[in-house]
């Protein structure tokens, strides 16, 4: 009898929850629609704030969906000319000092990109949020004076780096403003805070984000989008290994 009461109570709670909160997976689709584009070209400034020093790097980036990406570092002098190519499951890095193209694989994927709080694995995410996670809206929060839904994302596959993600999503702009990424064990691995947003045509996009690797000391990596264009025409050669040495 007790069990029956519990099941009925849970069913009522879930029904009420669904009635109050939107469907998590639909929300995820709206986030994907806002954040993803067919192609994109952007200039980023990445400021890595370690305990000992702050270093700023500038890169020009091209991407095609979530499958292909190409980055070229233009500053500072030490990093200038370093290029990265992502094509599906493969990631290559070109080092101008050695004129070598090295494929990043295995444990190397867990290494930090240019000393930042992002790993190569973070760059390798090649599926949409909808494809990777199932979502449940668990509440509401006000974050940076914006009304947000609180989403709990659960990975659909065991090989996804972050098995659980807690996201605060802007209710109107469908823009994730804050994320906590957890390992399978429940350990917090990374946080992302959007500090500034911008409107590009009809979509809202982060202008400045702070990535923080919870396992690293330091103040995190500030990621600023200086310039961004969506759905631009990108020559096909950009996403080839030959372009790394050009």
């Amino acid at each position: 009898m007790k069990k029956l009461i519990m099941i009925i109570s849970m069913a009522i709670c879930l029904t009420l929850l669904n009635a109050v909160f939107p469907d998590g997976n639909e929300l995820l689709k709206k986030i994907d629609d806002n954040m993803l584009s067919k192609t994109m070209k952007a200039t980023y400034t990445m400021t890595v704030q370690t305990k000992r020093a702050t270093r700023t790097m500038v890169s020009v980036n091209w991407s095609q969906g979530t499958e292909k990406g190409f980055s070229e570092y233009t500053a500072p002098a030490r990093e200038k000319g370093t290029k990265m190519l992502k094509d599906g499951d493969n990631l290559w890095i070109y080092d101008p000092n050695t004129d070598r193209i090295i494929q990043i694989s295995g444990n190397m994927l867990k290494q930090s990109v240019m000393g930042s709080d992002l790993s190569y694995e973070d760059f390798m995410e090649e599926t949409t949020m909808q494809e990777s996670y199932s979502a449940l809206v668990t509440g509401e929060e006000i974050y940076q004076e914006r009304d947000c839904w609180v989403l709990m994302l659960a990975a659909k596959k065991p090989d996804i780096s972050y098995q659980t993600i807690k996201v605060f999503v802007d209710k109107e702009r469908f823009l994730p403003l804050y994320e906590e990424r957890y390992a399978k064990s429940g350990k917090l691995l990374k946080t992302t805070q959007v500090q500034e947003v911008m409107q590009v045509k009809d979509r809202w996009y982060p202008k400045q984000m702070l990535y923080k690797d919870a396992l690293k000391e330091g103040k995190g990596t500030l990621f600023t989008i200086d310039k961004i264009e969506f759905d631009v025409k990108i020559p096909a050669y950009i996403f080839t290994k030959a372009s790394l040495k050009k």
Partner: protein
Amino acid sequence: MFKFLIKGLLRDRSRSIFPILVVIVGVLITVYFVAFMNGFVESMIKQNANLDTGHVKVVTRAYAEVISQKPFDLSLLDITDDMQQWKTRYPQLEWAPRITFGALLDVPDSTGSTLVQGEVAGMAVDLFSSSKEIKRLRLTKALRKGSLPAKSGQVLVSEALFDKLNLKLGQRVTLISSTVFGAMTLRDFEISGTVTFGVQALDRGGVIADISDVRRMLDMQDGASEILGYFTNADYKDKTARNLALDFNKTYSDSTDEYSPIMLTLSQQNDLGAMLNLFDSSLAITLFIFVGLMSIVLWNSGLMNGIRRYGEFGVRLAMGEQKKHLYRWLVMEAAVIGFFGTVIGTGLGLLISMYLQVYGFDMSAYTQNSTLLYDNVIYAHITPSCYYIGFIPGLLAVIAGAMLSGISIYKRKTSQLFKELET
């Protein structure tokens, strides 16, 4: 009296031959053990100091906390001015900045793509501005193929790594690592030669490069993960080192700044302090055991001798010789045996030790999986203590044995003497 005593010992050899043999063997082992341990400890101190610990070592406080991981991202940076101050304040020390780092050694094929990769433990030392580091690491002796790096961009690799990755002399390889700030970094090097240190812990996969190349690679200009200090007289004295470290840390170390320098002595690293204490006590323990064991053997031998000389003692007592005089006589006999046994045992022990001081003892078969830094060939070292240390077990044991077995003299009853002699 001594002449008479020695005559007795020489004429009745069954009285002296067994005890003297026991003393010779015991003293020989003791002298050899002391000389071998001296050599082993000295080799360990020298090898550890030269390869890893220095007589003292300066690192950041944060690095010191996890020193076994050798985290070069916690290295000392911008050290030139600091080192200048240290040189002035501590003229008795020579300084050697080093960087230890982990990397992937990537071998390209003809198209520049990865052919084979292997994990390496890198060590960056000053190869060009002075030859001291080359001497400390005995690189000239350790060189197996090719030559030492003669210019920037050249590296030495361990013979084992060279064979494992099928490398060639003059071949260009890329070292892939992280900079001190955590960014991936690549640098091309040319293999100038191969080395074998004779130390398993280092021979598994080592790469040695000049510190200036590695500083550029790891983005740590003017930095070092460890700065090793060596006493100019090359002699490590733990107390002196500890006092120096105390002064250094009081002057230059700031407990609130995790990147401020801190000095560690050799004995404060790699559990070497505990090991040195252990070796010190092992010598005392060994001497104690030898004295104990030899005393028991000689006690037994004394008793046997006592039975054999039962009649002699009885007659001497009957002739009016006092028991205490007979007892002292036996002890003196033992002392003479002990003295000569010790002299012969020490001589033989020194001879064996001298042989091992020149030719050494190859321990490589016993150190396959060792991570300790010591030579695979251990050379004995004869110190002044080797000349007198044998007298402790040699005399003590033989006298103790005689004193124990001689007690039976006091139990002897002269009233039963003739009855005994009749039988």
